[in-house]
């Protein structure tokens, strides 16, 4: 019997209309776990670098995490993997909600889409019955609207629906896949779904998911729940609100937005408004949110309430979570009411809430500076809010300037030319980032920004405090119950981190070696979450989370029946993390691409930064260009990657050691 997983993938060839239920190899689960890990393996095996995002040969994989569908609290993520039209690299965006567990109960670990349907279709997965059905009546419909219509049409109120809106249908490079209160937004996954002619995937499942050691497993689950309760009652003192409590940043619950509105940038990620948060604004925004919000809501099997149902007068009800609350507001220099209203439309259209407002602010800045002209925006309203609505519609319909803007700031700037490139200034690897501009380079964040392949800082940071605490006694208090550290040394690193003075201050502390270890730990926890289907809001994103390096191996052993310990899990995570990089290296990603947005920090340290990256690459087993070496690939059992690299001339035999060491051998 297979435990935690079903042992089956659903392969759907949209060109031929062929549907197959395929048994998976349990050996792959042991090596790559599930979710992101096995997604990366499938992409490596079946999508060579010649395949482009919109080639029929591109795959779109919806992978449920290994432990989704078991009683593990907060384990509900679907990891969606494909080749991104925006980055031309491997994209792996994720969504919480209810879809992944439902897929497991239907009897599948993944849905793998290949080919292209000539007509718009939707997929109906009802346990063993799987159908490709006509969706022509859903063309142009909103993502949530589509979900409601399909539940009615199929008479299945319990079915879970992942759908695209008009943005996905028209292949906007930052189109999302929406699923009720959740979405897989980054990397233009919705555009690939639209390109494949799939409007929605509807799932209903009523089968069992088994665990290997029932009593042990439920005990682990109960421990986690108890710890969550403890943390709810004992928020961490001395850190900002979103880090003191578990869950995704509690944007739907909080009213105080002083920190975001005054520290993050407005418009095209340019303007800090240091005295923005007045009492008057606070009062107005509180009223807006209080009157719009009907309920705080959760994902499957999770007590955190990170999302909300929002109803604004005259608009259909929709659901939101996290930071989209402020991205449109701040992009347009407007207020919360505007932000929540336009987000309703954008959610139905199915757009990434980080990228979309930034693209619009970017376009308006180009207009202001004369690089684009009024002729590019026929009949556009005068006010910024009106302009945002105008641009939103142009983009999702790919009309006029919208057709260029639909490709994101990087590609739009390249096409517009005339100096527009300078305006696409807030990207990493061509993807728009949070509008955060800071003063002093921070070594931990430097490495995370450079080497992250999920293109989002929130999806690599966590575990280690973002800044030192002013007093040693506070630091001592913090480390006292910090049992989540994989190694005691991390406590010392934090204890010795001083806020000011001569010694142990940023950016030369944590030292380069410490920085490498901290970043590696932070990244590893995210990668483990992404294979198991665990929400970062109960795990990798947090300081002192309920899930950590000490209980994860036990969860895997008792849940999936795979003998696991810390070392083995570390090795597995490293294996598929390297495989993600291998997919990207094969697509041309190199050291030159691993840079933070040029203006992210004002005060930079080029020599230190070079040394950081050199050392980190070496620490990771990558050569000086960021390519995994033959030796490190061998150690991970990834010889097939090394062979491919050598065949393609990416690595040459004998030139496999990192940096200087190569010559001494």
């Amino acid at each position, binding site marked *: 019997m297979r435990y935690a997983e079903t042992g089956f993938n659903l392969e759907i060839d949209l060109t031929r209309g062929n549907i197959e239920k395929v048994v998976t190899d349990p050996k792959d689960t042991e090596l790559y776990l599930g979710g992101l890990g096995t997604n990366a393996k499938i992409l490596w095996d079946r999508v060579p670098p010649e395949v482009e995002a919109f080639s029929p040969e591109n795959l779109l994989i919806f992978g449920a995490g290994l432990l989704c569908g078991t009683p593990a609290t907060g384990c509900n993520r679907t990891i969606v993997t494909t080749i991104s039209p925006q980055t031309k690299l491997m994209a792996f965006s994720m969504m919480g909600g209810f879809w992944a567990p439902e897929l497991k109960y239907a009897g599948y670990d993944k849905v793998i889409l290949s080919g292209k349907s000539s007509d718009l279709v939707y997929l109906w997965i009802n346990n063993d019955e799987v159908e490709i059905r006509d969706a022509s009546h859903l063309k142009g419909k909103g993502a949530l609207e589509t979900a409601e219509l399909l539940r009615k049409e199929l008479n299945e109120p319990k079915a879970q629906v992942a759908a695209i809106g008009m943005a996905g249908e028209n292949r906007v490079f930052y189109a999302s896949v929406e699923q009720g209160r959740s979405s897989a937004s980054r990397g233009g996954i919705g555009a690939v779904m639209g390109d494949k002619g799939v409007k929605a995937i509807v799932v209903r499942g009523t*089968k069992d998911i088994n665990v290997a050691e*029932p009593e042990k497993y439920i005990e682990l689950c109960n421990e986690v729940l108890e710890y969550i309760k403890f943390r709810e009652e004992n928020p961490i003192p001395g850190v900002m609100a979103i880090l003191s409590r578990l869950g995704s940043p509690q944007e739907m619950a909080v009213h105080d937005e002083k920190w975001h509105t005054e520290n993050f940038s407005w418009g095209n990620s340019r303007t800090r408004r240091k005295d923005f948060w007045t009492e008057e604004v606070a009062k107005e925004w509180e009223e807006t949110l209080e009157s719009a919000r009907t309920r705080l809501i959760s994902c499957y099997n999770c007590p955190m309430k990170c999302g909300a149902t929002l109803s604004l007068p005259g608009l259909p009800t929709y659901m939101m979570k996290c930071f989209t609350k402020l991205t449109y507001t701040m992009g347009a220099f407007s207020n919360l009411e505007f932000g929540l209203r336009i987000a309703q439309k954008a959610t139905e259209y199915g757009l990434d809430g980080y990228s979309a407002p930034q693209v619009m602010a970017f376009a308006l800045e180009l207009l202001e500076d004369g690089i684009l002209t009024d002729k590019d925006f026929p009949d556009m309203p005068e006010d910024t809010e009106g302009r945002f609505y105008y641009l939103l519609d142009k983009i999702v319909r790919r009309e006029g300037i919208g057709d260029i803007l639909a490709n994101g700031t990087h590609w739009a700037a390249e096409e517009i030319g005339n100096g527009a490139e300078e305006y696409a200034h807030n990207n990493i690897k061509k993807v728009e980032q949070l509008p955060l501009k800071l003063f002093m380079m921070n070594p931990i964040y430097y490495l995370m920004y450079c080497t992250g392949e999920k293109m989002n800082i929130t999806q690599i940071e966590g575990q280690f405090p973002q800044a030192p605490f002013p007093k040693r006694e506070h630091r001592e208090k913090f480390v006292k119950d910090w049992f989540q550290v994989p190694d005691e040394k991390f406590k010392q690193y934090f204890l010795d981190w001083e806020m000011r003075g001569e010694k142990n201050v940023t950016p030369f502390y944590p030292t380069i070696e410490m920085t490498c270890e901290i970043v590696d730990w932070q990244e590893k926890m995210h990668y483990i979450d992404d294979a198991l289907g665990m929400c970062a809001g109960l795990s990798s994103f947090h300081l002192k989370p309920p899930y950590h390096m000490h209980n994860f191996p036990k969860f895997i052993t008792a849940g999936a029946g795979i003998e696991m310990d810390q070392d083995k899990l570390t090795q597995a995570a490293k294996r598929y993390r390297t495989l993600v990089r291998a997919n990207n290296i094969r697509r041309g990603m190199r050291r030159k691409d691993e840079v933070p947005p040029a203006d992210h920090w004002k005060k930079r340290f080029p020599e230190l930064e070079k040394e950081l990256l050199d050392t980190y690459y070496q620490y990771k087993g990558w050569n000086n260009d960021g390519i995994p070496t033959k030796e490190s690939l061998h150690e991970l059992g990834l010889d097939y990657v090394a062979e491919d690299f050598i065949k393609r001339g990416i690595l040459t035999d004998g030139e496999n050691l990192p940096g200087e060491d190569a010559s001494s051998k």
Partner: protein
Amino acid sequence: MTVDKIDKEKKIIKTIRIDVDKCNGCRACEVICSAFHAAPKYSSNNPARSRIRIIRDPLKDIYVPVYAGEYTVAECAGRDKYMIDGKEYDECAFCRASCPSRDEFKEPDSGLPLKCDMCEGEDEPLCVKWCHAEALIYEEREEEVDEAVEQEDLEIGLDSLVDKYGLEKLMDTVSRMLEKD
């Protein structure tokens, strides 16, 4: 259903007080219920076997956790609509019956009815324990009731089979099975 004896006596009634305003729709109650009632205990998970369900319509802000009550042969005649706080609820949203009109509270494979047993042997029903939102609160109260002998799972199942196939056919089948053994 036959009732063995009717008598007035004092009895501890176990109930779950449900606060629909507090429910966040996460379905943890369904998760732990189905795990607890798996055989062996906790060996599998499947909300479709759960004895508690959230009647859920997020866009209409409807979240009603209901736990399984009696099995009923026939659906009731008039199904009314209730307007509460401007929201329209189907009467069935509050009904605990395993009933032919809907899929709730039936084993997905056999269609046999499910009934909440308050997690016998535990301090409190586990759905209550797992509901951090405190939408489910366990309560005991003493009441004078018409005492009927509680039906066991097996009996409820048999009852529903009798209703479906008739007693005679069921007896025949059982005897045939006995012969085979």
